[in-house]
């Protein structure tokens, strides 16, 4: 007998749009215990759960959900952590609609199980219990591991290898650990305290964290290999792209990385209590349609903008951002100018951007990515006033490490080449993964890469076989 299923997800309560655009606090509140148990009971506990195949780290989804349904939240979080050391992060930022939830059987008739929200619930529940138990670390192997970059990929490798008894040191160029989770994704979407707690946990497990250490400059990979047995490169994709159109170097034109780094890492939203300033534009245009663009647009609102436009050259359907971010942005009053491409920025006498010239686009034949290629419509140019522009059209890996490591093979976009099965690079004793290999990807894929590499690194450390 089929049980009666509620067709839609239990909604998650959130800050009303009017209030939240004035503060930096997290937007959704998360489920209560009751709501979580209700949502968990929507899961059919499939014999062959398709959802697991949609998760890059293969979390036992029905397993942890079943524990929530039964009210055993500790068991749920333990089950999650077998595969994912950052459930509080992934529950919040994974593009679930393209991963686990996309292939949940319920989608055939109804809305899928809210797997991400349940994952978040379990992790938040654990956090609310106070201190985490630090696992007993097996005896030391005497092997030394250097991890470069403390983003989700690096953190995963650190967690896996410290638990296997190796001595792990993590080098980070910036003054805070966490990678994009800290310098890029805003507080209102992912509270930094969550990331710091996970980092603190790793430090308690014995991971050594060295901040302000720019590998390639402070020490090269070869220098690190003199004192470490193996190296993992998880330096992300931090090099911002610009469009190379006239006026891009005018004052008031930002890269997304600069805008978000000022706002998040440097806390410019608290200026002048914090020293780093940011331009608080009134009329802001954000170029691009991904998560990064949504984050910039919503940040601009919170910095006091009166009008924020997302300017995207394809249509709504092709936008790569998570559905939830698009909904939130729309709810907050962000204006979407789709099928629009900026071609020129125009400055005032003091070299501040004051206008932007755009051209309208239409969708043509599908391109290599399978999405329909946008083509400019002749004569559709128009000029609109702006005082701040944020360019969020993508980024590629930073060349500092490849430039100083000649025997490390890189691809056309500067991405480090690594074997997808093992994470091995062309350079012995060096592994790589995450955005530095894939270009801009996702948190969970970076973590998946970290897991794969950690396994291979451990094997090498124990057998000496490359």
């Amino acid at each position, binding site marked *: 007998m089929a049980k009666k299923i509620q067709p839609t997800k239990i909604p998650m309560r959130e800050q009303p749009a009017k209030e939240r655009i004035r503060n930096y606090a997290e937007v959704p509140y998360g489920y209560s215990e009751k709501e979580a148990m209700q949502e968990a009971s929507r899961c059919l506990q499939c014999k062959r759960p398709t959802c697991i195949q949609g998760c890059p780290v293969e979390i036992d989804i029905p397993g942890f959900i079943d524990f929530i349904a039964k009210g055993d939240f500790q068991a749920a979080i333990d089950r999650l952590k077998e595969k994912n050391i950052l459930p509080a992060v992934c529950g919040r930022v994974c593009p679930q609609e393209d991963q686990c939830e996309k292939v949940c059987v319920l989608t055939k008739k109804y809305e899928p199980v809210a797997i991400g929200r349940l994952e978040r619930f379990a992790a938040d529940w654990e956090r609310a219990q106070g201190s985490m138990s630090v696992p007993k670390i097996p005896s030391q192997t005497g092997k030394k591991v250097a991890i470069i970059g403390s983003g989700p990929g690096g953190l995963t490798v650190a967690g896996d290898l410290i638990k296997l008894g190796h001595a792990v040191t993590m080098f980070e160029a*910036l003054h805070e650990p966490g990678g994009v989770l800290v310098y890029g994704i805003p507080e209102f979407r992912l509270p930094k305290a969550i990331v710091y707690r996970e980092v603190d946990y790793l430090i308690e497990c014995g991971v050594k964290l060295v901040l302000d250490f720019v590998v390639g*400059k*402070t020490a090269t990979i070869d*220098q690190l290999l003199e004192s470490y047995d193996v190296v993992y490169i998880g330096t992300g994709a931090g090099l911002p792209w610009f469009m190379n159109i006239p006026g891009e*170097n005018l004052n008031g034109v930002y890269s997304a990385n600069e805008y978000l*780094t000022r706002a998040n890492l440097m806390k410019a939203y608290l200026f002048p209590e*914090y020293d780093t300033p940011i331009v608080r534009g009134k009329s802001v245009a954000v170029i691009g349609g991904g998560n990064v663009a949504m984050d910039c647009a919503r940040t601009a609102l919170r910095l006091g903008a009166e009008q924020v436009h997302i300017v995207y050259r394809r249509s709504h359907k092709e936008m790569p951002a998570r559905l939830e971010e698009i909904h939130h942005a729309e709810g907050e009053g962000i204006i979407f100018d789709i099928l629009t491409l900026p071609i020129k920025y125009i400055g005032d006498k003091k070299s501040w951007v004051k206008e932007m010239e755009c051209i309208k686009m239409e969708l043509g034949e599908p391109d290599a990515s399978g999405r329909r290629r946008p083509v400019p419509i002749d004569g559709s140019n128009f000029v609109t006033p702006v005082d701040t522009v944020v360019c969020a059209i993508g980024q590629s890996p930073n060349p*500092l490490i490849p430039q100083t490591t000649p025997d490390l093979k890189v691809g056309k976009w500067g991405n480090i080449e690594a074997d997808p099965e093992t994470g091995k690079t062309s350079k012995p004793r060096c592994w790589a993964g995450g955005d530095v290999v894939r270009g801009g990807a996702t948190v969970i894929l970076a973590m998946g890469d970290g897991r794969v590499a950690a396994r291979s690194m451990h094997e090498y450390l124990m057998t000496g076989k490359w």
Partner: protein
Amino acid sequence: MYKVIERKQIVPNIHLLVVETEHIHKNAHAGEFVVVRADEKGERIPLNLVDWDERSVSMVFMEVGTSTSKLAALKPGDEIATLAGPLGKPTEKSEGKKIVCIGGCYGIGALNPVLRMFKANKNHVTTIIEARSDFLLYWRERLKEHSDELYEITRDGTRGVRGHINDFLVEHLKKSKVDLVYVQGCTYLTYLASETTRPFGIKTIVGLNPIMVDATGMCGVCRVTINGETKFGCVDGPEFDGHQVDWDNLLSRRKIYIREEVYSLSFYECERYG
């Protein structure tokens, strides 16, 4: 946190800062810089390396805004929140050349490792340091050690040659054969020196100081236009050919936050002095 070993005012508004670190000296070269952040709420600012050894690095800075005021208030034993480096591309090496090196304000200190490197590579080094007045010139003995000749220029004539750097430079270039001019200091000085050497067709390398945040090539705020192309000051520079720099763009980009900087400084001073 990084321990301050020494902080002293060398001449009015210009300070020496020596901070403990074991990491930076190993790969440090002339022309490179570090990023410092005075405290947990501070801004990341770039400062040239003026010296280094196994346990410390030294910087010379001019007190202008909030960040440098915070640094100027440090005492030995205090700590700063961030010290990262060495960053940027090293000064290009040359050998057996006739080189004129020019420094003004904090750039006088920044010349130190560059002169040392040029001298060690058997170049003939003529050093010119300039300031408004005698009491603002410093480190003449220290720089003399790595120079074949050293000239001092003051605008009021209280020491050395009276006048402006450009007048002196023109006379000098007319008299002597010079292969390369190298300049460190504020944007006005680097600009003026570049425009002065341009008619002579002498290659002129300048240390630029665009605004920076991460200083690792991640944010792009430091972009400068060189020969019509956009470059990132922190990783492609900070030294560039002065004849290729788009000075208008550099000068206007340096002013992006002027309003906020003034506000920030008055906020800091209120907090500190009440």
